[in-house]
């Protein structure tokens, strides 16, 4: 290999969308190729783990790590790549805060495996066979990674230098970050301070062109129930939008096409728990209960009736940030695990 800086990109528990988003920087990928040597990138180049194990520590200059930590293999790879990389980037929502995989923290590992290996209508598993970490066969012993109870973010298992949020991160943001790294590596400019890069420091609403008035919500609608007005704030129309509690940087792409923000860029700076902020925000804009209007019992009933139109509050408010939430997971099995 040449003496060009080394780039790696690895997927742990993820969907592969982050790789696609990275390749989506279009012709800039040629610049990336011109500046970097690819040291490890299972999606586009044939490397094996033993190649990485053979590198000296800190050999990889920048490693973009996407995907959450779901299995022992994910965790091993996180430790290996941390050891071999100068700069480790938590790339995308899964590595940053758990994302969709971490929604399974709202249930148990057993229930998750039951769904996957037994209960789906298309599953035929009469012997109830589940993957086992260790299996003895005549030819020897077979090993599979251990499936963890709790999905974790990358920074919960190794030290992370930078975080690029998004599900997936927007290509123009990826390119901006790569450019900053390239400048730093080629011109000796210092790297930006650790933390979140490739995103803005304000909420999605700041980037959303929809018109905002006073929010007075009488009930929520599922996206299929209404055709939203194209110009007015979606939340005002009763469509769940997490833009108010979500970091910007995406350009408010979803609200612009009539879909409420899903919250994929995570909490805004200074906020620890995106879901708690959504609870605050949603409760604040409900149009129910003026002083002296209703008695206390009736008031509570009316509020509950509105909340009934939000079918899955935890899954909605923590859709992307479960692993980073304050509570992190649901309590298991009659609350007796200690």
């Amino acid at each position, binding site marked *: 290999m040449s003496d060009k800086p080394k780039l790696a990109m690895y997927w742990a528990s993820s969907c592969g969308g982050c790789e696609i988003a990275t390749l989506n920087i279009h012709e800039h990928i040629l610049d990336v190729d011109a500046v970097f040597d690819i040291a490890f990138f299972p999606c586009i180049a044939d490397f094996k783990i033993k190649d990485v194990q053979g590198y000296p520590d800190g050999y990889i200059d920048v490693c973009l790590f996407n995907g959450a930590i779901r299995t*022992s293999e994910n965790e091993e790879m996180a430790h290996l790549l941390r050891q071999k990389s100068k700069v480790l980037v938590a790339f995308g929502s899964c590595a940053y805060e758990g994302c969709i995989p971490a929604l399974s923290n*709202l*249930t*148990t*590992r*057993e*229930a998750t*495996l*039951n769904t996957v290996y037994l209960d789906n209508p298309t599953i035929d598993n009469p012997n109830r066979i*589940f*993957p*086992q*970490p260790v299996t003895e066969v005549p030819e020897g012993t077979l090993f599979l990674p*251990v*499936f*963890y*109870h*709790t999905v*974790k973010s990358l920074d919960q298992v190794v030290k992370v230098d930078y975080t690029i949020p998004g599900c997936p991160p927007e290509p123009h943001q990826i390119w901006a970050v790569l450019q900053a790294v390239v400048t730093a590596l080629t011109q000796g400019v210092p790297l930006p301070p650790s933390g979140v890069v490739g995103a803005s420091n304000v909420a999605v609403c700041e980037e959303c062109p929809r018109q905002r008035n006073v929010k007075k919500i009488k009930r929520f609608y599922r996206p299929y129930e209404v055709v939203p007005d194209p110009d007015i704030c979606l939340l005002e129309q009763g469509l769940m939008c997490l833009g108010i509690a979500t970091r910007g940087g995406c350009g408010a792409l979803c609200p612009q096409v009539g879909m409420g923000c899903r919250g994929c860029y995570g909490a805004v700076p200074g*906020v*620890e*728990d995106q*879901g*708690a*902020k959504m*609870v*605050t925000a*949603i*409760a*604040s804009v*409900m149009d*129910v*209960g*003026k*002083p*002296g209007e209703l008695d*206390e019992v009736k*008031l*509570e009933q009316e*509020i*509950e009736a509105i*909340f009934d139109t*939000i079918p*899955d*509050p*935890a*899954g909605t*408010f923590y859709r992307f940030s479960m692993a980073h*939430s*304050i*509570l*992190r*997971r*649901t*309590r*298991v*099995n009659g*609350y007796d*695990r*200690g």
Partner: protein
Amino acid sequence: MAEKQFEPLIIGFTCNWCSYRAADLAGMSRAKYPPNIRLIRLMCSGRMDPEFALKALRSGADGVIITGCHPGECHYLEQNYKALRRYLLLRRTLKQFGIEPERVRLIWASAAEGARLAQELTKAVEEIRALGPLSWHNVVAADGDRPLELQHLEEVAA
């Protein structure tokens, strides 16, 4: 020997204008309530960020009690209505995390209701005591590295 009674740790968030004064009045008039509650004074129950409750529960509290002025009597006009809505939505969310909603409670009390607040707090403490310890720090800390034990599968409601 009798087993030692479980003493829950409860964080109380009280509003400055009514319920904190009610708690004060309870103290001055020697109305007793259990010492399990640690009160934190907020300017208004509308200042009660759900994050406060989550942090308390994660950090070892077994319950959270929010107190505020009666509806219609808020010093800041209608912020206690927001507190009520947040509290109800928070309880729904907590349920999905496997936390009994009864661990988080909302009590209205005016500055004159010292005795009633003491009564309500006592009732709440006993009900949270009956739920047993929450031990959230153990739940979060204990996960992640146990091998599969699939012989004893059981369905657990999500």
